[in-house]
């Protein structure tokens, strides 16, 4: 007998997990298929001998995550969210520490960059009032030119954190910038005390309580369609039936690989083929020797040796710009371990086709240059390192199956394609990082909720 569910979720990233939970709470019978050996997707961690735990994407998220977690997960999860107070910028144009909120950014614009108060207020007012339905033709570059003409330093302060957070560039629409900026650079940067492992474990427990059937090591291979409607999924060679499918996997693979382009209208597929994926990442994970300490130098450091902000240079293999996340023991209460993660944006193509020998060589170079850069902030870092390892776009592709190792989903146009899936094939939905504004932990969770509402509507009409 083929097992029958109301909804099948493909992928246990934050979007998929949240969507599954919402649907289960709403009374639906839900199956969640995850290809990897653990849930979380890019919200993940790994352990190495010597007691090291490394977080991949726990660098910071906006305050909105507190309310979102309380409503869609639990008060306990929400109560573990704490602010990171020391956010540092250091580059040839400026160097300071900020609390990363609106008040402090306004102060910095005035005191560090001598911008006129009226211009500052007008800028904040303009970006805050931007919304999804606005004119999309203005680029982020044009927005900055309008308010801060020729001022590269201001562009850098306002843009660099967003470029790191979601891969956006100065050529992306000003509205995507405005929406993300107003959420992110508004009330500070927050993190989850306990670490990603504790968060995902808490979410898994809640899913279990709410009756979601979770299968790990279960890659979905095919979405089954009949008469322009979904009816099931094949995963691990096994067939499951359902009335709705939500794919949290890569948007393009969902359409082209799992479902098949022939099931969609030609002009829809034309738009699908125009969707640009966001860049990928490189990371270097540094575990500090047990017993060694690191003096507080800030929580999140946006560092660069480049003369000015440049979207292309940010992804270049010749790394000039890095963020360092410093994890002090209080992130995992009860432990005494320190770790540091250096992150850079990266292009898949720079890493994809290297021979094994060159790949290892370039990984080593990435590690070496990261330690060099870190020495400026922690002079005796070399002596304190116990463990070090690097991840490249290939690593991200391998673990999440995102095409080209995309770290932050798709560019803006991907959102429309994602939202229009159910109009093409009844019962087929997508959730997860997409379109820049639905990106990051908060974006993925909230999009999971939005899509759950659409799925619920679909199911109740079935």
């Amino acid at each position, binding site marked *: 007998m083929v097992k029958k569910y109301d909804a099948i979720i493909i992928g246990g990233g934050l979007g998929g997990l949240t969507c599954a939970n919402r649907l289960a709470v*709403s009374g639906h019978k839900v199956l969640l298929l995850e290809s990897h050996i653990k849930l979380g997707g890019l919200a993940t961690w790994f352990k190495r001998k010597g007691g090291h735990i490394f977080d991949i994407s726990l660098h910071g998220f906006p305050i909105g995550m507190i309310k979102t977690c309380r*409503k869609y997960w639990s008060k306990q999860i929400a109560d573990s969210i704490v602010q990171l107070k020391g956010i540092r910028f250091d580059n040839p144009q400026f160097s300071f520490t900020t609390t990363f909120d609106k008040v402090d950014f306004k102060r910095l614009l005035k005191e560090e960059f001598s911008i006129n108060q009226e211009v500052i207020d007008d800028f904040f007012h303009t970006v805050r009032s931007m919304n999804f339905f606005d004119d999309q033709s203005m680029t982020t570059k044009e927005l900055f030119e309008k308010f801060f003409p020729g001022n590269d330093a201001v562009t850098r302060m306002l843009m660099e954190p967003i470029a790191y957070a979601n891969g956006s560039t100065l050529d992306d629409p000003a509205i995507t910038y405005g929406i993300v900026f107003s959420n992110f650079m508004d009330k500070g940067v927050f993190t989850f005390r306990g670490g990603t492992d504790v968060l995902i474990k808490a979410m898994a427990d809640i899913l279990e309580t709410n009756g979601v059937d979770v299968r790990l090591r279960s890659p979905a291979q095919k979405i089954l369609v009949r008469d322009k409607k979904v009816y099931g999924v094949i995963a691990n060679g096994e067939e499951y039936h359902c009335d709705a499918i939500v794919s949290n996997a890569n948007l393009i693979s969902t359409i082209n690989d799992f479902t098949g382009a022939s099931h969609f209208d030609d002009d829809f597929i034309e738009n699908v083929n125009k969707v640009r994926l966001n860049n990928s990442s490189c990371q270097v994970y540094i575990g500090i020797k047990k017993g060694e300490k690191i003096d507080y130098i800030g929580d999140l450091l946006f560092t660069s040796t480049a003369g000015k902000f440049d979207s292309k240079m940010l992804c270049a293999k010749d790394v000039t710009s890095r963020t360092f996340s410093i994890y002090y023991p209080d992130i995992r209460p009860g432990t005494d371990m320190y770790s540091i993660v250096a992150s850079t944006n990266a292009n898949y193509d720079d890493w994809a086709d290297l021979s094994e020998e060159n790949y290892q060589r370039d990984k080593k170079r990435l590690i070496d240059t990261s330690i060099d850069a870190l020495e400026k902030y922690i002079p005796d870092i070399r002596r304190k390192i116990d463990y070090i390892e690097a991840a490249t776009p290939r690593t991200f592709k391998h673990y999440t199956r995102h095409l080209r190792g995309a770290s932050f989903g798709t560019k803006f146009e991907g959102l429309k394609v994602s939202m229009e899936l159910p109009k093409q094939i009844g019962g087929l939905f997508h959730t997860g990082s997409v379109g820049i504004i639905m990106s990051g932990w908060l974006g993925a969770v*909230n999009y999971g*909720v*939005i899509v759950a*509402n659409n799925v*619920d*509507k679909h199911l*109740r009409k079935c």
Partner: protein
Amino acid sequence: MTKEEVRQAVLDIIATIAPDEDLSTINRDAPLREQAGLDSMDFLDIVMELRKRYNVDVPEKDYMELVSLNSSTNYLAPKMADK
């Protein structure tokens, strides 16, 4: 459901979505957004809860009917008369 019951049903839902808000002093004609600190995700939650509890659907184009308690009640009353 009578109109008064519909109003209470909406208030009950808001109470679960915004548990920290005092709803007893709500001005029925003024926007809920400011009074109960509701954002667009909260309105989505109201819509999903209405569907779950009463099987009524509020299509996206009608979301603005939920702006105040009175407009919500007036909009929902005919849809919920037989519930």
